[in-house]
């Protein structure tokens, strides 16, 4: 099995049409190794989130080749993409961390419920993950009863409940104060190591990015990719 979980070759992606078209990614080449923790940084609008969406099978490249888990993503059916997002990829987003009508425990269990796991099994797995992010006492609370930091930690627990191989986080600390950002990132680091994850984290926080194994810097220039190992 290849050690590279994600391989991008000449990936291009743009939005709009005609004169209003904006090219966001222009021939991106990238490889993410299994077990790696990659930070993606750069100014707004250079395609950090776009890259994450492409890797996370939420979007398709306009051109180029993108392999995830060794498979060409252009050949995956809609159902396969949904199944992989459910089982093999965990997501943490900046907004909408949790579904408001469901308790923290139910939110965390949701990927397993979607996968068809029995409710009891899913809730038991959720409880375990919730405890691992330090929110055991908040299991039965609804999202609006949780702080922003707690909601994001809940989102991390949900992202990992189905034991994915790849964790994708889109500015997970973007809405948090420094203290909560530190707690959340600490949880990321610990779970990344303990679960043998491959993580790609988009962030504006250079200090947190520097704690990742490698940083991918995107810019608006033609040659966009600058990788540095820290």
């Amino acid at each position: 099995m290849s050690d590279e979980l994600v391989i991008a070759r000449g990936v291009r992606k743009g939005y709009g049409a005609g004169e209003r078209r904006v090219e966001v990614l222009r021939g991106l080449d990238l490889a993410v190794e299994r077990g790696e923790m990659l930070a993606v940084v750069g100014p707004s609008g250079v395609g950090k989130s776009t890259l994450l969406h492409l890797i996370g099978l939420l979007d398709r490249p306009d051109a180029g080749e993108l392999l995830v888990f060794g498979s060409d993503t252009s050949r995956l059916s809609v159902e396969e993409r949904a199944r992989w997002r459910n089982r093999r990829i965990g997501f943490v987003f900046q907004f909408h961390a949790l579904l408001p009508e469901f308790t923290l425990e139910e939110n965390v269990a949701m990927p397993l419920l979607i996968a068809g796991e029995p409710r009891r099994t899913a809730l038991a797995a959720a409880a375990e993950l919730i405890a691992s992010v330090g929110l055991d006492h908040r299991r039965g609370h609804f999202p609006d009863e949780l702080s922003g930091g707690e909601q994001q930690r809940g989102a991390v627990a949900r992202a990992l409940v189905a034991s994915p191989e790849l964790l994708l986080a889109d500015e997970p600390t973007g809405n948090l104060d420094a203290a909560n950002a530190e707690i959340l990132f600490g949880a990321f680091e610990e779970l990344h190591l303990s679960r043998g994850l491959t993580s790609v984290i988009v962030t504006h926080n250079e200090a947190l990015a520097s704690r990742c194994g490698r940083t991918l810097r995107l810019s608006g220039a033609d040659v966009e990719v600058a990788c540095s190992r820290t």
Partner: protein
Amino acid sequence: MGRGVSVLGFLAGRYLLGLGRRTHVAAVSAISFGAMALGAAALVLTLALLEGFQATIRAQLAEAGVHAELRPRAGRVLPGGDWIAQLRARHPELEVRASSGGAVWCLGGDGAVPAELEAVDTMSRVEVNRVLAARLGIGAGSELTIASPKLVLTPLGPMPMRRRVVVDAVSPMRPDDDRAVVLVPTRIGAALLDLGAPRTVALRAKDPAQAWRVASVVQAEIPKGVEVVSFAELNRPLLAALTLERVMIGFGVALVMAVAALNLLCNLALLAAEKRADVALLTAIGLPASRVRRLFILLGLGVGALGGVLGTLLGGAGAWILDRTHALPLPRGVFIVSHVPFRVTPGAVALVLGVSIAAALLASLAPARAASRRDVLEGLRYE
């Protein structure tokens, strides 16, 4: 399928119940639910009312009218022989009346009216129907003079033959029959008219509930040249009018369901817009678009079908109470019943439930399709 439905049921149930303090979604759903319930209740009550009146009319038809008639086929007369007597012997559950007759004038207390005389072989008394009784102002025990077209020579010259009789009873009549009829024994009829062979044989079941079966019971036993006219055929115009009335009024009231379904459609579209971020998140974590579509159809069916069931129960219960308590009285003498009758039938219940489910399903399709096609990334960016 079962697993898919279980998580979709979980999601739909929670959205409808409005836990997590997102009560406006539940409130909007409750409005749609109430509208569907009201529509279903209105439809059940209307169908029960129509069925109540129509069942009364059908029962009166069976009570008062002939249940089947044996007539000569076109251009023929009823055959002779003892087949009528045999029919009578084989079917003691039926009243078999061979009759003939013609036009006469009847003279009573209020003047004279043209009438039809029917000489019935099994009758031993004189009856008039309600039309004749009303026109002449007579009743049981009244004297009646029947004048025939046959002339007799009198000292004053040729005069119509007359026969004075005492009315023994006033017979019921079909609701749509406005003929004036006098029924007499054959010997009286023969004295007034040249009767000849019977013109028709009327059949009546002693149990009026069997009216609809009489024609089929005797069908195989009648001689050639005789046709059986069934109860339904005898009353075709009235029964067709009743059916048309039920269809048109039912259709009109079903429009209430259509309005309720449009309300459901609007509310589901609102819900789909409100939940765009949630749907995007669910899609991102692996819920396929096909199941998003099913989720919204389930929401629509949850509101529509449950509203329909509740409305059907309320409408059915309301109809039962109104019928049992005679809560809506009618003026005596104007209507044939003393109160507004309601009758809920299994067919009406099935129809209303079917209409509810179909309306909810149709109302759900467009919002479900829109929700499943919405751009996931746009939903995730939506703040």
